[in-house]
């Protein structure tokens, strides 16, 4: 696997970079705060009277919508801006290894943030007898979905040297993936587009695939969908870095 030589050093460097600035701590605090607040206030965790984490996972797609592009925006835009991309890509590191190393580092970081929501899980187990299989599946689904958001945002970050642009464009692209399954978007297409096209749009929706998993129905296709989005985005990311190296 020569294309992935030196993925590990890139991973380690990037991962450490998150914790060498306040970014990591700010992100984790905001993520935990928001996911908690949404669960208890908007999600009506207590009044629902159900021992599950549905109202917790329900908001993940929306929290990720702006938090993940914030994590990913620096991945490539910063390298481009400061010129360190020239160091990175003239060391014996294949572009694919750099892309995957950076992605995995950011994903691992988000994974830590997600893992730190474990008090939620403890709480619900203390209050009742939830189906822990469903909760584990939901966590896996949430992690996969965050990976899809992240891969898209990382690819967007590689075309600009401006982190603000990277953030906004990534958020918009993620928003399109998020909402493509909602009736408000589908209704727009239903009027004129052929039925199969509407189905394709709906099939690209993060919400549709994520909801399937959080209801405890682990469908191989949902998992495969997120993995495919990650793979395709990373592939595009490699292409964009190669294409725009000098510029």
């Amino acid at each position, binding site marked *: 696997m*020569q294309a992935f*030589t*030196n993925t*590990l*050093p*890139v991973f*380690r*460097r990037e991962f*450490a*970079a998150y914790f*060498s*600035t306040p970014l990591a701590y700010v992100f984790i605090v905001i993520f935990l705060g928001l996911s908690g607040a949404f669960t208890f206030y908007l999600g009506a965790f207590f009044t629902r009277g159900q021992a599950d984490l549905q109202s917790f996972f329900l908001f993940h797609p929306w929290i990720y919508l702006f938090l993940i592009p914030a994590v990913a925006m620096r991945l490539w835009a910063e390298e481009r801006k*400061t*010129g*360190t*991309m*020239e*160091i990175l*890509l*003239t*060391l*014996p*590191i*294949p572009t694919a290894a750099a892309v995957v190393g950076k992605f995995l580092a950011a994903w691992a970081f988000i994974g830590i943030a997600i893992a730190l929501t474990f008090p939620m899980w403890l709480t619900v187990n203390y209050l009742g007898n939830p189906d822990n299989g469903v909760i584990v599946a939901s966590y896996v689904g949430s992690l996969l979905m965050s990976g899809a958001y992240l891969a898209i945002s990382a690819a967007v970050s590689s075309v600009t040297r401006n982190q603000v642009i990277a953030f906004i464009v990534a958020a918009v692209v993620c928003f399109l993936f998020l909402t493509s399954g909602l009736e408000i978007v589908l209704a727009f297409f239903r009027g004129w587009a052929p039925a199969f096209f509407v189905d394709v749009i709906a099939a690209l929706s993060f919400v549709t695939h994520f909801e399937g998993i959080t209801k405890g129905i682990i469908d191989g296709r949902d998992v495969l969908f997120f993995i495919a989005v990650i793979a395709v985005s990373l592939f595009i990311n490699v292409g964009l870095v190669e294409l725009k*190296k*000098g510029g």
Partner: protein
Amino acid sequence: MSELINLSGLTKRFGPITAVDNISFSVNRGEVLGFLGPNGAGKTTTMRMLTGFLPPSAGSASVAGHDVVNDTLEAQKKIGYLPEGTPLYGDMTPAAFLEFVADVRNLKAPERQQRIDDVVAKVEIEDVFYRPIETLSKGYRRRVGLAQAILHDPEVLILDEPTDGLDPNQKHQVRSLIRNMAKDKAIVISTHILEEVEAICTRTVIIAQGKIVFDGTPGDLLAQAPTHNAVCIRVPRARAGQVKTAIESVPDVARVEHKEDSDGRTTLVVFPSRGRAIIVDVSQRLTERALAVDEIGVLQGRLDDVFRRLTLEP
């Protein structure tokens, strides 16, 4: 194999602009090649192609026998590279950064720690080893950049303006560092500081508008100066005419220029034909005719003049 770098018809176009136009040269082990040219001549672009950062539009380049396009990774393993302006990860310390580079360069214990210690001592960054790079001065940053370039003791060293922005002491230090490494490596240094060429380079390639306009030793370059081997004589004004006539008939003297100085003396500049050394003949003639002069000396020629002539020619 003594030829470590080979460029053959290397060309880079950015849209309608040809930044590097059909450049060919090679560098052998033991050579320090000064790569000169005005700003925007294509030095950096050439170096970026050589290090596998930019793909060439045409032509090819190889490092230690590895093609930089088809065998990029192997070529990059042989190269130590200091990019222009020394971009570095500001949030890292030199310690963490060198560990990262050591990982990437696949340096293994026990040699690994030894290499890091060695390099840190060589470029003298012990004092700032644990401070974030973004807080370091330009000189220290440059040295950290140099440290990462030489960490794996590469056969090929490519340094883009290694002394740019350093103070004279730091420049001296970097130059002796380069000179000490030179004998078993091929080194390419881009610069627009001409004194640097005389100080460390064994060979000079000058490019202008993407094309090679000179390839030879710094001595060859100096020989192209119009004042090379010219003789400068200062005499009291009263005797100037006499001296001038005496010298003009010396063999190999092409012409004599004179200039009245404010202190009542005249400076005569004697230009040789075809750059020959004429000082002996000239002084002999003066002795024969018993003409005393106040000063006599050989002009070395100025690199600046040659540089300007070579790079401004259309």
